[in-house]
């Protein structure tokens, strides 16, 4: 692993529930997460697996009817389970920053982007009123926006999707965050723009020396970006590994199936051969009982899968929640 720095965030048994009219739903169910400075951790999973809820829970942004509990939650030396909300607000945006899929909703539509950046600079006490505007332009240039002077005077809707995402990255990085959480920041963008945004994001993260928790459903991005990968299925971590281990020796049948179902751009089409697919659909979180949540779709399911599978360590840093590896 590249510079395995200090642990900046450590959460144990994170549980986020939502009270819905049809019952209590456990969107995130007992997640353990440890993030180190300088590392990129990708959180992968299909839609509804609890990726966004995890990110929002870590940011302290879950509102009722949602409810977050955690056995242990340390961030940058603070015990967040006991921290008052006012302190949390100070950390948020400054020491932890979040970037969302849709930059348009993260920006104020009726204010010029330069002014929005300048305001954040002032809030964080990083620039005086006089200086803020100049610094905002500088920042826009820094995140690769051409003609920053002019662009600072634009409204968000006048920018392209990629430019908007550059602006939100600039805003996120203002407080020199120790942790950046990016929730599918490139899903709405075209591939060529996506590459640029990924480059910018990792460049910023490296220069700040912060940890990056990158949420995505795209296993291609994971392969390019991640140091470590956490695979979520129906609210639970089913596998966690260094990126090399995950792609070379995936352990969980779900991970195996997922990797197999990504069509390979570089392999020729095999006519008459079906694409690898995982049968069935993700379970309804309101209906999951005990036992492995993947067992209905699993080709290696067994009687014992009706009981809660244990988290098993295959090798250092490679953990799998599956009965296949029990008693080895």
């Amino acid at each position: 692993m590249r510079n395995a720095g200090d642990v900046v965030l450590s959460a144990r048994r994170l549980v986020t529930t939502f009270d819905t009219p049809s019952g209590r739903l456990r969107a995130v169910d007992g997640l353990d997460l440890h993030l180190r400075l300088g590392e990129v951790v990708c959180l992968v999973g299909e839609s509804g697996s609890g990726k966004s809820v995890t990110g929002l829970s870590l940011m302290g942004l879950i509102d009722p009817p949602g409810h977050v509990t955690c056995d242990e939650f340390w961030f940058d030396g603070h015990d967040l389970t006991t921290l008052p909300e006012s302190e949390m607000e100070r950390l948020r945006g400054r020491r932890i920053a979040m970037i969302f899929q849709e930059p348009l909703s993260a920006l104020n539509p009726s204010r010029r982007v330069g002014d929005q950046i300048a305001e954040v600079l002032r809030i964080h006490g990083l620039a005086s009123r006089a200086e803020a505007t100049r610094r905002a332009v500088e920042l826009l240039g820094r995140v690769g926006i051409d003609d920053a002077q002019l662009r600072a005077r634009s409204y968000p809707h006048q920018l392209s999707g990629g430019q908007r995402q550059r602006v939100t990255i600039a805003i996120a990085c203002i407080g020199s965050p120790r942790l950046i959480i990016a929730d599918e920041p490139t899903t709405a963008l075209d591939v060529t723009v996506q590459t640029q945004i990924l480059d910018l994001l990792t460049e910023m993260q490296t220069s700040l020396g912060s940890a990056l928790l990158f949420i995505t459903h795209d296993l291609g991005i994971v392969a390019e970006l991640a140091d470590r990968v956490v695979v979520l299925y129906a609210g639970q971590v089913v596998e966690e590994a260094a990126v090399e281990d995950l792609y070379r020796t995936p352990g969980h049948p779900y991970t195996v199936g997922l990797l197999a179902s990504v069509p390979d751009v570089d392999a020729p089409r095999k006519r008459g051969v079906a694409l690898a697919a995982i049968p069935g659909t993700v379970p309804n979180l309101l209906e999951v009982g005990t036992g492995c949540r993947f067992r209905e779709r699993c080709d290696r399911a067994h009687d014992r899968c009706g009981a809660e599978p244990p988290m098993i360590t295959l090798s250092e840093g490679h953990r799998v929640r599956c009965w296949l590896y029990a008693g080895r």
Partner: protein
Amino acid sequence: MLGRPLKVVRAVDGVDISVRPGSTLALVGESGSGKSTLGRCVARLDTPTGGTVHFSGKDVLAAHGAALGQFRREVQTIFQDPFSSLNPRRTIGDAIGDGPTIHGLMPKDAIRDLVQQLLTRVGLRPDHADRYPHEFSGGQRQRIAIARALALAPKFIIADEAVSSLDVSIRAQILNLLLDIQAERGLSFLFISHDLGVVRHVADDVAIMQAGKIVERGPVDQIFTDPREAYTKALLHAVPRATLGRRHRDGVVARTSMSTTRPIS
């Protein structure tokens, strides 16, 4: 088979495409490049300001009355958004039976039987016919949309980003279904997609679109292994590969070398 190009399109900015009977032409390009517009012109859901569309040798844009009716039976469209492509107020049985009902092709009982057959064919249960769209997941809705398109036994299907909103594991199921049905019925496809990985595994021919123009076209393997145009190369290069390979290590090197850039605040 007809033995000649099934259809030729020339849109306003000089786009020319043709789909051979029983084959799949993939239309690839970034958002806003005009793929959907072209698809809608081909389906005669939009009228181009100039150009011609031929289907089975007949001029589509000039068709009216019975000829247009026949075109509507033989050409179907499947859309991207499984949530807006089904009418929330009608049962899926009604939705699937719409085609035959509109064209007055068969009595009610026959339509009901057909709906049940089609539901089974696309991997759903016959008793799903009485349910409403909101009771189904995105993947299941896309199956319903496919059943709906098949009800009129079309010859040609335009699939506009039909699997783009689906999760990987579900996407493969739906692609397999489309490919099986194509083989069974000898269908032709216009497959509109921005996902090059998917395109490589379903297409026979590929047309790359940029800003309303086709910049390159050819057989699928040639486009992917020996692209001529810079734009095609850039697109192919930008696709993130789900394998640990050269680019990953490049990335690490690139990122480490960037750590010298100064912090921004």
